[in-house]
């Protein structure tokens, strides 16, 4: 049985589903079928099924070393951004009045709103003027700066919602301020911290603009390798590596969910 009067709502819901999924996933579809397409040109019409391109990715020294650099940068940047981001979140939510609130939070969103190409170029120029050689560390720092606003947003939000009532209760129960931080405040923030860390790692892993300027020629992250391949030779290997990358990131997120017992994807 169905109640009357819901028709327009049902149409709207179906429409939003179609628009939402269609526009988000639609553009990805050609990549998917090209990854399994036998044609040696990318992109090309469908010619037959093959796994050849995936084999090429896995055996490619270039892609594999790119992936390792990306993982190193991703982990380093995420760790650094977590320290920066969690500290900043506490400052924004619990700091003195002049540092607290919307204006301060907006200011800390700076790295997101300034075009990354400009940040990349500026860091490169500054480093060369100081005759400072940017290695892996430079890349990690730049990525950390870029991803920390996402961590600040999520962690500050959670901290705000959490309030200070529970901490007051804990202090009255005899725990010193620092003990409360480690037994209560941080454990309660764990889901927010883990989720934002996974998000930060993903953003760093797929980042192009910063890496483009700042990665030394012997340390190329995966997206840069893909970018250069794209300019030189267009083969379906590009599609295959993209699919693999998405798959690995999804897997890593799922693993983080299992290990840390938090919900990130839902």
């Amino acid at each position, binding site marked *: 049985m169905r109640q009357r009067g819901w028709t327009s709502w049902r149409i709207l819901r179906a429409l939003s589903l179609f628009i939402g999924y269609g526009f988000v996933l639609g553009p990805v579809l050609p990549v998917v079928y090209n990854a399994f397409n036998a044609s040696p040109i990318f992109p090309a019409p469908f010619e037959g099924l093959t796994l050849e391109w995936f084999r090429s990715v896995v055996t490619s020294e270039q892609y594999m070393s790119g992936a390792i650099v990306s993982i190193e940068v991703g982990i380093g940047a995420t760790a650094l951004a977590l320290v920066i981001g969690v500290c900043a979140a506490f400052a924004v939510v619990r700091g003195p009045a002049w540092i607290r609130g919307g204006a301060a939070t907006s200011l800390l969103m700076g790295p997101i709103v300034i075009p990354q190409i400009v940040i990349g170029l500026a860091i490169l120029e500054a480093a060369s003027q100081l005759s400072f050689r940017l290695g892996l560390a430079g890349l990690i720092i730049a990525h950390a700066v870029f991803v920390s606003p996402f961590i600040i947003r999520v962690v500050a939000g959670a901290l705000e919602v959490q309030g200070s009532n529970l901490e007051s209760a804990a202090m*009255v129960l005899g725990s010193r301020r620092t003990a409360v931080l480690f037994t209560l405040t941080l454990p309660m923030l764990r889901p927010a911290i883990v989720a934002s860390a996974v998000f930060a790692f993903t953003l760093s892993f797929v980042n192009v603009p910063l890496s483009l300027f700042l990665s030394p020629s012997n340390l190329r992250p995966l997206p840069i390798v893909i970018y250069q391949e794209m300019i030189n030779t267009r083969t379906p290997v590009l599609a295959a590596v993209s699919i693999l990358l998405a798959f690995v990131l999804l897997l890593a997120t799922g693993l983080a969910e299992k290990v840390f017992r938090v919900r990130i994807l839902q």
Partner: protein
Amino acid sequence: MTQTAQSLTLEDISVDYGRGPVVANFSVHVEPGKILALLGQSGCGKSTILRVIAGLLTPSAGSVHFGATDMTLRPPWERNLGLMFQSHALFPHLTVLRNVEYGLRPKKMAKKDSERRALEMLELVHMTRYANVHPTELSGGQSQRVALARALAPEPRVLLLDEPFSSLDAGLRERMRAEVAAIVRQVGVTTVFVTHDQDEALSIADMIAVMSAGNIVELASPRDIYKRPRHAYTAAFVGGSNLIKGELCAANGAWRFKAGDTELAIREANLAAGPAMLAIKPEDVAVDPPPECQHRFRARLEEASFHGPNQRLVWLVESLDGKAIVSRTVNSQRDFRVGDTHEIGWKSSDAVVVEMDQ
């Protein structure tokens, strides 16, 4: 456990959040093992006082003593208190058992001992079955009891309860009220209890401090607060007394109260002669009163409303300058019709002379 109970003394406490004083010159003393209720309207500074006692807020002036020890500048974790927030504030990432155990952590007890103590406390509040459940799965009354167990587990010197029952429905509230009162008495801990519900204060407390605008209007036993209030504010706030404005005079060693054209004989008054108010509880106002009611008036019924077992009647009394007097009587076969004129009255011993509000 009783030997840990201590007296609590607040002296001239003032608190200012930056927009003028919220609490000014607040002083109170609670004997060991007694229950003090802070009763007052929303925003009068009740929670602020609790935060000062707990050390979550430093007063701008005044002192807090537990027994003879000055605690004014000690941090919360050195005060050995139990605090139960309005929101219960259970730690969501810990099980019920770990919540109760949390306060034992700083005591550096052996794990086995602290767990046993926590289980004992859960038994006291009948929550042993829920030891391994997370607080999000508890009902309001259950989290209430866990919060109480958690507050009592470290054997606090003083227990602070901030409107602990306000989030419960009426039936459960009554039951929890009785249960908590029984547990607190059994443990024998000095308790300060905040509420805006007069029933709650009257039924649980040894002493009630009626508060208004950051200060104590009146401090007395529940019986005196209800039966023998000294201030018009108390009389109106607790029990919703009728207040008749007038003047207290002494003539030939007898007290009389003059209101409008009427003069009433008063049994006793502990006020100086002068402007005052006469307070009468609605349930003491009788319709067509028996002979022992010495204060009698002709009155016209203005309004009648039904309140389950009771009916609330509003009368206009001409001889008191048209003053409205509220009576509350048990619903009987008798039906009063609005507009009818009757005689109303009360015993002179039920009329209390109170000080006018400043």
